[in-house]
């Protein structure tokens, strides 16, 4: 996997359920796969001082982020017995209730996919330079910080 080109992980705006369905359907020709595990990050309408989050606006150091996503992919393929892996992250505005992160791992057997998916998601949260601005209904905002 070491010579693969750096892919662009970012998608403008929310990730639609049709996009996810299409991605699942494409794997039906890979009949050595027995287990898929999918993580979806959804924008929460958190409350702060009685105001609700309406959307998150994502920005990123795009070049560095794509390189970091690539490194996370390589490391995950080395650590776990996976058939394939796909990562998509939103950039720009994503409304509350919409999907902003889609991670998809597949393997012949189920044991590997759970650990692999959790590893990928934690790595993304910790290492990828993406910045979320939570926008409230009154157009004020606060900067999100991962825990």
């Amino acid at each position, binding site marked *: 996997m070491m010579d693969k080109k750096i892919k662009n992980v970012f998608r403008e705006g929310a990730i639609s359920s049709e996009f996810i369905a299409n991605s699942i359907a494409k794997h039906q020709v890979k009949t050595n796969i027995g287990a898929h595990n999918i993580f979806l*990050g959804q924008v929460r309408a958190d409350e702060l001082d009685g105001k609700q989050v309406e959307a998150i606006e*994502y*920005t*990123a*150091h795009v*070049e*560095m*982020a794509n*390189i970091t996503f690539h490194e996370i992919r390589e490391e995950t393929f080395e650590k776990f017995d996976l058939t394939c892996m796909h990562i998509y*992250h939103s950039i720009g505005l994503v409304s509350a209730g919409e999907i*902003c*992160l889609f991670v998809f791992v597949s393997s012949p057997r189920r044991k590997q996919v759970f650990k692999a998916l959790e590893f990928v*998601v934690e790595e*993304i*949260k*910790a*290492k*990828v*330079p*993406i*910045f*979320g*601005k939570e926008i409230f209904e009154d157009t004020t905002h606060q*900067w*999100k*910080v*991962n825990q």
Partner: protein
Amino acid sequence: MELQIKYYGMLAEISQCDEELLNFDGTTGADLLHFLIQKYPSFATKDIKVAQYNQIIDLGNKITSSEIALLPPFSGG
């Protein structure tokens, strides 16, 4: 030397620009942060990472690239 500094997220909000050219005569990442805090005092309260060549550097390391990214805490996902 002349550095092109790129600001991200809340840091771009504070600097009110995405990038700017600055003359920097220090050596390390720590020197650079110290220099920028003089220009933008509220940087002092933020948890900032310095990156060059698309990699975060330890603050003790030398600035060798003419393009530097200033990164606030990550919040992807």
